[in-house]
């Protein structure tokens, strides 16, 4: 067992982990941050995406020990300080970008990472960026619209082009 210490959603947390404990297991089982989901075992689906030191990471593909000392952000840490939904979260609700909600945490975290690097992505760029996030409910249409809207773009105008 190894002791790890990291900052998760702004709070310093520590725990004893085995060498093969995945970051996603540490978040879900040790910290009980169950918003991060596991939808596959081959690193394809993206339901487990979190931010580690500001980068989008599939937390099923990283050991907890590797995140020692890191700044980790999960979907639980995405709302505004007053508890209201962030711009991206609000856009997902406004544009019906989620149905069952299972892929949603990963989608929100991926969207945030995209918009950080590319504040005004084209529709093609959004679709391309979501290659590592699978949604089975929405057919992606409203997820793409939500992300475009969260970037401040006029979605009806894009659709009318």
């Amino acid at each position: 067992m190894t002791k790890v210490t990291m900052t998760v959603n702004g709070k310093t947390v520590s725990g004893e982990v085995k060498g093969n404990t995945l970051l996603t297991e540490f978040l879900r089982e040790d910290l009980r941050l169950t918003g991060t989901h596991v939808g596959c075992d081959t690193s394809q689906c993206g339901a487990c995406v979190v931010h580690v030191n500001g980068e989008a990471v599939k937390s099923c593909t990283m050991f907890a020990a590797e995140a020692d000392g890191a700044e980790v952000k999960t979907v639980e840490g995405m709302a505004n300080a007053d508890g209201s939904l962030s711009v991206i979260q609000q856009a997902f609700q406004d544009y019906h970008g989620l149905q069952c909600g299972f892929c949603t945490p990963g989608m929100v975290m991926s969207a945030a990472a995209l918009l950080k690097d590319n504040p005004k992505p084209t529709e093609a760029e959004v679709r391309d960026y979501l290659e590592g996030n699978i949604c089975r409910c929405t057919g992606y249409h409203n997820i793409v619209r939500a992300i475009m809207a969260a970037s401040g773009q006029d979605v009806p105008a894009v659709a009318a082009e």
Partner: protein
Amino acid sequence: MPKDHGIGASQKRREDVRFLTGAGNYTDDINVHGQAYVHFLRSDMAHGKINNIDTSAAEGMPGVVRIFTGKDFEGVGGLPCGWQVTDKHGEPMKEPAHPVLAQGKVRHVGDPIAAVVADSLEQARTAAEAIVLDIEELPAVVDMAKALEAGSTKVHDDLADNLCYDWQFGTDTETTDAAFKNAAHVTTLELVNNRLVANPMEPRVAVGDYSRANDEHTLYTTSQNPHVIRLLMGAFVLGIPEHKLRVVAPDVGGGFGTKIFHYAEEAFCTFAAKACNRPVKWTSTRSEAFMSDAHGRDHVTKIELALDKDNNFIGVRTDTMANMGAYLSTFSSSVPTWLHGTLMAGNYKTPAVQVNVKAVFTNTVPVDAYRGAGRPEATFQLERVIDKAARELGVDPVQLRRQNFITSFPYETPVAVAYDTGDYHATMDKMEELMDIPGFAARRAESEKNGKLRGMGINCFIEACGIAPSNLVGQLGARAGLYDAATVRVNATGSISVMVGAHSHGQGHETVFPQVVAEMLGIDESMVDIVHGDTSKIPFGMGTYGSRSLAVCGSAMVRATEKIINKAKKIAGHLLEASDSDIELKDGQFTVAGTDKSVAWGDVTLAAYVPHNYPLEDIEPGLEETAFYDPANFTYPAGAYACEVEVDPDTGKVTIEKFVSADDFGNVVNPMIVEGQVHGGIAQGIGQALLENCAYDENGQLLSASYMDYAMPRADDIPHMASYVVDHSCQTPCTHNPLGVKGCGEAGAIGSPPTVVNAVIDALHSGGHTHVNHIDMPVSPSRVWAAINGQ
């Protein structure tokens, strides 16, 4: 101006807030104090005789609580099939035993052989590796035609062969043959409806718990219908009476049919929790899901269409082999029969329709309902053969369909169902308008300039939803009623909890159902909450599938709310010293008609629970009503879809450039949610048409058991928003339910696959590849390239 509340408003979903902030409560988020974990040791061979399972070494390993094999389940029932099909000779279908853990033989890759319960999942997995299996591998049957050959290896030794049933339905043979004899033209097509895996993003999970204090079992499970699981598992598998068994399906991460069924893992965790005196948890990996979730589709069909000299359809005859897999899953037998055969008339007034289906056992994962369930298979073959006929006859595919449309309702088809209402020309008109068909030639020319072939495909479809009238399905072999139920509990201060039998796993019931109740009562939607997913809280309802939630459970909710209104008017009449027949309810206010005397909703609800001034001699205190609703008929959503594809003739790659759907769902309560349902269905249909394939090799090895091998649609496989329209403005309200709704959950998955394939064939013909009459799904680049090149 669109409505901002009540029926017809695109209310934002209230459930979104918890899902967007990580506060959802899915089954895998539930840990019960002291729980152990189970790992299932599954068969890695498709077919084998179990000689011995030696667990002795594994039993002593660290953390192991107990190891179970099929022997431990000899005293309990097998997993039941909920629908008995009667074959064309009047004989019941073959119903082989489906044990919780394999007994005697393994019959598909993934068949559970042993279950290791341990303190941790890692310990359970490690111990499972120490189990010594002596299993003699047997030849496997995978191909249905081979499985039906005389002398084929048998999946079940106690059956005569691999035939589950040989079913015939619709018009009699003499009449059907006469139609074909009189035909001026007959078009024939042989095709495959590819095997799919539903793949809800949340893998299945089961947590069993048992209380010795009161002999009560609790099962937390990823189910679309907790009461159905309680009924099947309690009554048929484990022998637990309903009042000692609670089934909870909390937030469920998508279902698409595959979470309807009662699975071995649910029964195991419930059984083992008592046997081990500890809660037992199972969480499926995705790899396990591919080999243990019921699969979908997998039909091989020959369809023939007979036309007279004026191109009127005069006969349809189909011959289908339907793969059941190794065992009969819960509703498997009904899919190729009653959910498929009854839809073979489509939108057309063909007088003779005969459907023949042979259901076949093979050494593969059981096959059952997946989004659309039988209706996509019916639509695909019918609409593909119509398209082929139009091409052979050199007529416009839109016109050929239009001239054969059913136009007067109600309409009794030759395949047992009666369409109550519809307007197929209206949806076709809308599709043509949105598709800009006159502009197609220019778009095709532009594609050709870029070295691409462009094709347009159109398609019409009908579904039977709102499943289902119990007396009708009972005659057809269903072993359950298919009503639903709702309890409307009005609290003293006027807030309302509505307990419903329907289950929401993405459909947004928590938002939509209150829209209806609030509108009926004239109160704010925030005063109404929906309770679902827990058999200890909700009335006995049958759950969510077959696009039934609003049409069936919503109707129960309307009936219960009507009872509430009737009683509330009596109370209001008493308070206002007027006859209750003179009381009107509007905007949450009860008024004596023609006067300004009124009491508010909250005054009446308070009086019901604080009955100081109350007609106790006439009515009871309290304000809570339950209604069960059994539909008089199915509902019949219908639509017309179209798409344009580009085919790269050098690589065979197909891209969807434009997609339009024109649906008739009857009345719509929340347009935003309805459109979202269609988007999701279309994406799954595009997945089936272009990408997805559950593949076995000839030895029964599952080749597509991960997302590396099974191609799920991604965001860039779906048309861009500028060239994608889903429309539901054509509305012929259902005539027999109180909301006039038809259901929208499956339409997209039913309507889109033939649309896409029709477009691909059109593109290839435009490029001179006129020898290509059909390509089986998924229409992958290699298949298209091979078809173009005559390989």
